């Protein structure tokens, strides 16, 4: 395979992946509105497109499979077959299969897949055996299909086969018309730009802003301040714009949910109305990408644990169909995603019982209703008695919480017994900029994320108790907490400077103090990746460039100290003073 061919194939795969996202959506809409003409046309066009291009770049298997689907779609289009739930299910399976093939081909361009069964199912539906789409062999009377298979192997290009039955001609001639008149590409108004280039642009603009401030302070002396200031405004505008280029709407992450809701509700025999609000809300691409899994998990949970069965709902005086609402909006520097269901709510006292039985909380401990509900975020906690296929595979809400927190976000839950639950995910709009605190420790300037620091206190001589061979500790409002010195772990030289200030960091219900020399100021910093030489150093979140153009390290205090803390806690269980 030469380079050009490989590139062509990869281009196709990328394009096909995007198309598939849209078709899944269309199939789901088709299920709701099976006689929607324009929808069927759109799907048919997609299938035809996919068949043609996949064959052209040499992915025969995709072409062959798609050809079957296209035949079925043609029948639907010509209103010979009505798109029942079952048919939509098969088409969704087809969608999944093609995606699986694309994934496989991306790894290995020569990969071969098993799609016999699906092809048979598709053929069977066309042959009118839709009632049993599983393992029905293609009917013997189905002559034309066989012919097509031969054609698929022998004809490499778009050329129409020479010999055709009349029925076959319809299948092929129809789409041909559309081929002649080239479809305008839908994404005409957007331009695909590699993230790398955007990063370079952001780097350069950041540098521009720094140089501008140098120029401004130099010009200020010569009275040309006005010009310098307008340059400054311009630079700021350019910086805002270049930062915003990384933002994408949350819509695509939401669209996946429609499929999840459909499959889950079918499996559990529940009726669900999924409402998506605020799909245009924008968020950093990196955040958007890691949003999918937590969302899917919460939605599955809402349907499985939250919503009642139709019978239960009627008995409770609710409409038969449950509502799951997913709403996205901006709040300050955060994107908020709220997932609300009108199910039975979370039963706090049941959770307490469970937690006690599992030894997660001691019997003597009393929890408020809210604290009880928050037990669902505890590791190893699944309230369903029976582990179901849908949710509760041991990994649970604790994973969701961890994932969101790793992104610098937060998860909150509110629930009312009998009337439903609401999960609130708060995510930073971008990972590229964080609110930082510029600190000094061990003769070094470092940046720490402001969000990790709960409070800052001035250290006095007598606040810290030293013990030989043990971690020093201090008394913070009647709680004994361990004290670390950043200088010991991150100072470049032993300066012998006193730690004047302690930052209090809280992680997993455990607070600890970190002694530093000074806090310089708070500022927003642009997070840049760590260089290879410091990539694996524990506690490095990244690097950044400070206002004066000097690089600095961003230290992840929680990452740096939580493991150390756990080890030491195990060694000598710290005494918790009441």
């Amino acid at each position, binding site marked *: 395979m030469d380079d050009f061919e490989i590139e062509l194939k990869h281009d196709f795969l990328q394009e096909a992946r995007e198309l598939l996202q849209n078709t899944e959506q269309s199939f789901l809409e088709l299920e709701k509105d099976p006689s929607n003409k324009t929808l069927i046309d759109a799907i048919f066009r997609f299938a035809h497109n996919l068949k043609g291009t996949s064959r052209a770049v040499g992915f025969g298997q995709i072409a062959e499979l798609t050809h079957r689907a296209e035949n079925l779609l043609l029948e639907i289009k010509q209103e010979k077959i009505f798109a029942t739930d079952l048919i939509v299910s098969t088409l969704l399976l087809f969608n999944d299969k093609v995606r699986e093939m694309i994934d496989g081909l991306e790894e290995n361009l020569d990969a071969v897949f098993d799609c016999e069964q699906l092809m048979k199912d598709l053929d069977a539906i066309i042959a009118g055996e839709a009632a049993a789409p599983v393992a029905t062999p293609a009917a013997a009377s189905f002559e034309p299909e066989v012919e097509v298979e031969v054609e698929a192997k022998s004809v490499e290009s778009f050329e129409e086969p020479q010999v055709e039955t009349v029925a076959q001609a319809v299948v092929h001639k129809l789409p041909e018309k559309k081929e002649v008149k080239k479809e305008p590409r839908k994404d005409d108004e957007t331009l695909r730009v590699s993230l790398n280039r955007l990063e370079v642009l952001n780097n*350069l*603009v950041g*540098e521009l802003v720094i140089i501008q401030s140098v120029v401004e302070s130099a010009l200020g002396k010569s009275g040309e301040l006005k010009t310098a200031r307008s340059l400054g405004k311009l630079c700021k505008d350019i910086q805002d714009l270049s930062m915003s280029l990384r933002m994408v709407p949350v819509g695509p992450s939401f669209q996946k949910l429609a499929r999840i809701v459909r499959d889950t509700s079918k499996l559990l025999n529940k009726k669900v109305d999924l409402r998506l609000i605020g799909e245009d809300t924008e968020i950093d691409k990196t955040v958007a990408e890691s949003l999918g899994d937590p969302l899917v998990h919460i939605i599955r949970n809402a349907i499985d644990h939250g919503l009642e069965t139709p019978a239960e709902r009627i008995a409770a005086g609710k409409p038969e169909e449950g509502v799951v609402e997913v709403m996205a909006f901006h709040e300050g520097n955060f994107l908020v995603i709220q997932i609300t269901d009108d199910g039975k709510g979370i039963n706090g006292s049941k959770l307490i019982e469970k937690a006690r039985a599992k030894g997660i909380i001691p019997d003597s401990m009393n929890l408020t209703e809210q604290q009880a509900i928050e037990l669902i975020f505890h590791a190893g906690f699944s309230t369903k008695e029976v582990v179901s296929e849908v949710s509760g595979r041991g990994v649970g809400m604790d994973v969701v919480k961890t994932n969101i927190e790793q992104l610098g976000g937060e998860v909150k839950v509110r629930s009312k017994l009998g009337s439903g639950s609401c999960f609130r995910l708060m995510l930073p709009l971008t990972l590229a900029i964080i609110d930082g605190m510029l600190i000094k420790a061990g003769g070094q300037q470092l940046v720490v994320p402001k969000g990790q620091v709960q409070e800052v206190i001035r250290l006095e001589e007598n606040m810290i108790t030293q013990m030989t061979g043990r971690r020093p500790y201090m008394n913070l409002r009647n709680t004994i907490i361990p004290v670390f010195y950043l200088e010991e*772990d991150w*100072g*470049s030289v032993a300066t012998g400077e006193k730690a004047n200030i302690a930052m209090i960091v809280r992680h997993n219900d455990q607070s600890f103090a970190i002694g530093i020399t000074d806090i310089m100021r708070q500022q927003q910093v642009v997070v840049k990746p760590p260089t290879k*030489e*410091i990539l694996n150093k524990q506690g490095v979140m990244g690097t950044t460039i400070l206002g004066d153009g000097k*690089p600095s390290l961003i230290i992840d205090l929680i990452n740096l100290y939580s493991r150390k803390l756990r080890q030491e806690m195990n060694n000598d269980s710290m005494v918790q003073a009441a």
Partner: protein
Amino acid sequence: MDMFNKDKNSSNMETKRFLEFKLGDESYAVGLLKVREVITPPEVTAIPKAQPYVCGLINLRGTVLTVIDLRKKLGIRPGQDASQNAVIIFDLDERLVGVVVDSIQKVLNIDETKIKPVPDSDGQGMAHILGILHHEEKLTMWLDPKSLLDGSAPLKVAA
């Protein structure tokens, strides 16, 4: 036919271009295409608890990169005069690394026939040497910056 390479007309031998520099009193060279640029030594931000040969971080027009002192890494004593010191920015497959050298010499054009293989030796440093360049009665070591800077195993021994 080859309108872009007029200087090559008399010879059909391939020539390669190198950047020659000094580490201490020793001459080394690297393939010119691996070099992004050469800058005067900037102020570096130290990386605490890093390997001793890591000088620190610099800001190269918005990109943060590490600067390494090859002399410390290879155990070469730095020259007396630091005024000619320079930092070579290497472009190693999408990643930039800076290297402090004593001085930049010049760009060498060397016929392929003048590039000799590395003599068979078990010296540690030889691991990162691609060949020996014979020019003007001198021998210059042709270093492989990628294997030298990518932190492969033998390096840590050398440091």
